[in-house]
């Protein structure tokens, strides 16, 4: 399996905070890479770095053989990387459909389809056809999350990064969205899946990386990694700290 994304010795400082430090990992074409880590570990920052929202202080990010660090978000998006947000980032003045439609407008490969066809397909894939006309502020959390996914999908991305896409959902809703993601993955789209919900991570991930304090703590087979003593200590430790 060849790597679609390679992150090499990437670092990011925010003033005094070193959010990501000397981080290297790669994602293979077609896999679902789970990414876990305690609060503040740097997961969202990694997404921000890859998607061009923030520029790395140092290091290289190679997507599909090309350097993308320092490129603008829209350039990275049209190059083939899309993401969802931890907190909803939907366009509030628009309907669910329009949100997805905007995403389909600027994609490179339309495969002979119109933006409308792409939009409809993305909506159908995410089970949104019935509520496509709803304004975003009238959507349930679950619907919002699925619009985010549909939108990422509609950009024609070959790599989609989801940031806590099941947070706040109940069991049924979680299963629904995981099914959708696995369906997307079956089309050959690579996923990076950031999640606190360990059950969800274990269910979908082919491989797992664990971040702590901006660096890579462990990586490998999900079952093995999750049982590693380091991971349990860091992860549970932080969970307890949260509880306090």
């Amino acid at each position: 399996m060849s790597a679609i994304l390679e992150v090499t010795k990437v670092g990011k400082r925010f003033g005094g905070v070193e959010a990501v430090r000397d981080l290297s990992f790669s994602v293979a074409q077609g896999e679902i890479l789970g990414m876990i880590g305690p609060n503040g570990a740097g997961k969202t920052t990694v997404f921000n770095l890859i998607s061009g929202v923030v520029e790395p202080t140092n290091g290289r990010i190679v997507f599909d053989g090309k350097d993308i660090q320092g490129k603008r978000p829209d350039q990275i998006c049209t190059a083939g990387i899309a993401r969802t947000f931890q907190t909803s980032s939907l366009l509030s003045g628009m309907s669910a459909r329009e949100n997805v439609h905007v995403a389909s407008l600027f994609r490179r490969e339309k495969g002979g389809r119109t933006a409308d066809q792409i939009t409809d397909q993305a909506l159908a894939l995410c089970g949104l056809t019935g509520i496509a006309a709803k304004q975003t502020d009238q959507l349930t959390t679950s619907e919002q999350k699925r619009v985010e996914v549909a939108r990422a999908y509609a950009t024609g991305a070959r790599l989609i990064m989801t940031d806590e896409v099941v947070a706040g959902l109940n069991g049924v809703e979680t299963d629904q969205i995981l099914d959708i993601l696995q369906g997307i993955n079956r089309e050959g789209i690579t996923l990076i899946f950031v999640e606190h919900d360990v059950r969800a991570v274990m269910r979908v991930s082919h491989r797992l990386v664990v971040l702590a304090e901006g660096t890579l703590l462990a990586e490998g087979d999900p079952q093995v990694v999750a049982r590693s003593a380091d991971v349990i200590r860091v992860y549970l430790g932080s969970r307890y700290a949260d509880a306090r």
Partner: protein
Amino acid sequence: MSEIIEIIIFGTLRGAIFALAAFGFSLVLGVLGIVNFAHGVFVVLGALITWSLTAQIGINIVVASLIAAGSMGVLGVFIQKVFIDRVFKLHPLMILVQTFGVAVVATQLAELAWGGGERSLKVEFPGPALLTIGDIYIPTWDIVIFVISLIAAGVLVMIMQMTPLGRAVRACRDNIDSASLVGVDVGRVFLITMGICGIWSGLAGALVITLKPTGPYMHFFWTLDAFLVVVIGGMGSISGALIGGFLYGIINFAAYYYLPNQAPAIIFATLIALLMIRPQGLFGLGTTVRK
């Protein structure tokens, strides 16, 4: 009673042109999040270019208006590319200062070209000069301008609702980061927004000069008017600006009718009151203030 009706009719007629001049201002405020102090320059230059093309070169006024509007579109793109874009990431105050500077320089240049005085165009319009509704006389030309303004508003609404371009502009108005992450080239949208702003404001200018004498120095009044329209109607939305324009026209007309000497104070007091009751404007999209 018919007094009030007349005030509402005339205020609304005037309001249409205020609205037309404010659409671009509202869009730029919504999308780029900036208050463009050079906004009125589009209006007065649009007016003066129309004047030159018609009165000096003899081009048909319809064509002249379109050329003037188009060149204001180009100017909008130019101002965005050469000035605003360069300071966009700096403090918002810098953009204010800069657009103010652009306004001053543009006015100076316009004064070199057209002199400091006012110009105006008289349009010979076939048909009766006045229409009567009951005992109310309404100048036909005012109605023509009103209709043109409405059509221009309609076209803009269609562009915003139906075209990819409009979607992209609206996406940026909502959330720039989110738009750029689904592939919208924000820089280009900014350019297009300023271009649209220039075109529509330039068209407003082309109409204005057929209504009243217009000189380069008047740019600031237009910036202020556009600003007030947007305060009333709420920023970012075209229909908000349209209704804001009508209301502003009526408030303005009523104030100058009943208490002319206190009119500026009354207008501002009304606006302050409005802002206190509904800070986002009557029809504001609400969430988009960035700078």
